[in-house]
């Protein structure tokens, strides 16, 4: 099979490693001040001001069903846009960003995941790298969940 390289950005949630497609990522920010928005889903923390744009932030940890959430110095916001439009920008809060790496799509294995308590249940696949299994999140599903 022909090699199909893709670039991924990996991050931690509750000591597990996940990844997004780098091409969809617009910014990585420190987790800091944000403004609450009333009457929205629990994991939608609020909005932040990014270069004059109002961007909602969603806690990916809550979406994944993590019970105990601890904000540290490493906690970060990954700002993504699934269709490249400014209107679709959204920030996901994660425990920490690990690295950007290239991989061959052919190396992806089916994710073994038995539908736990989280809202995100489908993955594009998993890849073994270093000592970790990295689960590649399907951003479209992720974003659809927020939009629901």
């Amino acid at each position, binding site marked *: 099979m022909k090699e199909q390289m893709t670039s991924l950005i990996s991050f931690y949630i509750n000591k597990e490693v996940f990844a997004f497609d780098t091409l969809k990522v617009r910014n990585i920010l420190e987790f800091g001040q944000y403004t609450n*928005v009333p*009457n929205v889903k629990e994991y939608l923390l609020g*909005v932040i001001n990014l270069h*004059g*744009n109002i961007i909602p932030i969603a806690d990916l940890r809550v979406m994944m069903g993590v019970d105990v959430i601890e904000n540290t110095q490493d906690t970060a916001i990954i700002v993504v846009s699934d269709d490249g439009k400014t*209107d679709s920008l959204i920030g996901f809060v994660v425990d920490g960003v690990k690295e950007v790496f290239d991989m061959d799509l052919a190396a992806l294995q089916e994710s073994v995941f038995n539908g736990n308590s989280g809202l995100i249940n489908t993955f594009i696949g998993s890849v073994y790298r270093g000592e970790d299994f990295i689960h590649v999140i399907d951003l479209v599903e992720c974003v659809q969940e927020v939009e629901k």
Partner: protein
Amino acid sequence: MFVYLMLEAMIDKFKVKFVEESLDNINDLEEALLLLEKDTKNHEIIERIFRAMHSLKGGGAMFGFNDLSEFTHHLETIFDLVRNDKLQVDNTIISLTFEAIDHIKHLLDRGDLVDPEEIKEQKDFIARVQLVSETNQEITKVAELPNVITDDGSNTFLINFKPNEEILRNGTNPFYLLDDLHAMGNAQVLAFSSKVPGLEELDPIGNYVEWQIVLNTSESVNDIKDVFIFVEDECSIDITKLSAGNLLENEDVKLIISEAIDQQKPLLVDQLKGLSVPKNTEFTKSESKKKVQLKEHKISSIRVSSTKIDELVNLVSELVTIQAQLNLYAEKDGNAGILSLAENIQKLSRQLRDNAFEISLIPLQSELMRFQRLVRDLSKELGKDIDFIIEGGDIELDKNIIEHLTDPLLHIIRNSVDHGVELPAERIKAGKSPKGTIIFKAFYSGASVIVKVLDDGRGINPDQIVKKAIAKGLIDKNVELSKKEIFDLVFLSGFSTKEQVSDVSGRGVGMDVVKKKIGEIRGEVSLDSEVGKGTTLTLELPLTLSIIDGLLVKVANNQYVIPIANIEKIHAMDSVKFGSTFNHVVTIEEKQFPYIDLRETFNETAKKDGSEQLILVKYEDRKVGLMVDQVIGEYQTVVKAMGRFLKKQETISGASIMGDGTISMVIDTNRLIHLNAMKKYRTS
């Protein structure tokens, strides 16, 4: 090759521009035509129509819309005659022109026709157009077709075409034959109508006219005869060759022809034979062409792409935000130099902002043409007689608002024509004038624009609405509703008063869609109606989407902006007597008002220590209080969209970035109160 490609690209660009400009011209044309319908003798309007057609024709030829150019040319002929008082405007002409405009739009969309069916249709249409310009007039001079054959192989013929009285009875149209002759080359047609009898003796389908044609063509006599092959038995044809070359260019011949027309005396072969063909045809031709190309040229406005304006408005919004930050910093810093600089920048950026927003405003007028057309066409189709009156068409609105407005308005007006105004017979029975009226009214009211669509039709019965809403489970049987609340039910999704789907307005899109669309631009819709008297739809729209005067308030840890336009009064809590908290009613100056505790609606922890303030806001025809922790002050703010993921949050219409970079959310009070009120009525 490369240069060629660039040229191609440039021409394509010009084409796009031409289409855009032509659409403007067509708009203008339609508008003028509607005016002409009411005032058929107005010379200014006729001139306007002629000019618009002329630009269409000229532009069409230049950018390769040849069919369009040819077609418009024939149409223009009619108005040229009208312009010169040779033709009277009547309903046929106006209807034909409207139809022709649709055809022109089609041609603009398609470019030159390829489909043989369509080409034939266009030909037929042109014939109809020509029929109008020719039957109303004794002599018609048809200008040369673009592909005139001027080489020396051509000959000039005199054709005597005398159809008998019966020719029209078998469906022959002599004009088609003349068209065919025109298509062969350069023709001058003379019509002689001296045989037309008086009215008493006139057979309406008899033919009494004879023609003479001076034809310059490179085709042979036999080819000319072929034109008349099917009518040989119904007419006498006499073809004589006058000379080689184009005799029509000869000044003497022109004179002879025009004399013959004036005196209605047929041309004789001897008159024309022996006259020579002028040598300098090239020269006279090019000169006459040039004259046509000269047109008025005046630049009073320029065309800018809308994305550029959006970008400008965005940048100015940014600037205003940064400027507010600068002011804050300057005040803190206290340096007199910086303070005065900041002040100047504030002044400038305000002016810049006002200017930029003004640029993005366009008059409502531009869309109204479509509505005029809609009412006219639809009422004719439905057999109704409706006057469509527009007031306040010069009101200007943000182009983004107008874009969102067209579809809902089309729907509303369609409803009025289809369901509102009755048929003439029905109207007479109800003691009304057979002619219905739909009024479109727009006017400023504070920071908003009100648009009303009023009809004097049959109206809507509130009892029927209630019945239907109960049947559909939208409301509880026992709920008592005010008239206004009843009419509001119409906007709920899943509500549509007409049972059967009508061809016109019942395409499954209900008033709920109208409401939603208007809501998207922060507007409000309401309906009022009186049975037998008519229905009024009112739209309240913001002037611009991106900037509002707001009141900054605090609820728990968050700051919110309430649009000042909606605010009636602010009360401190001590002057306010609370009724039972359970009822959410408050007494102010011996009047009771319902109120909404924002801490409660925003799910913040409850707190009542007497420092709260109550803001009375207008909601439709009532006033409702909003309880906040603290009023911070007035604030002019640039409203930004919250993006696609927070659209569900309906009570917040946007957010605004404060001078220090923090965010405050803009409350849509109408929606907030509406949603609160709806909770009361929902059965589920």
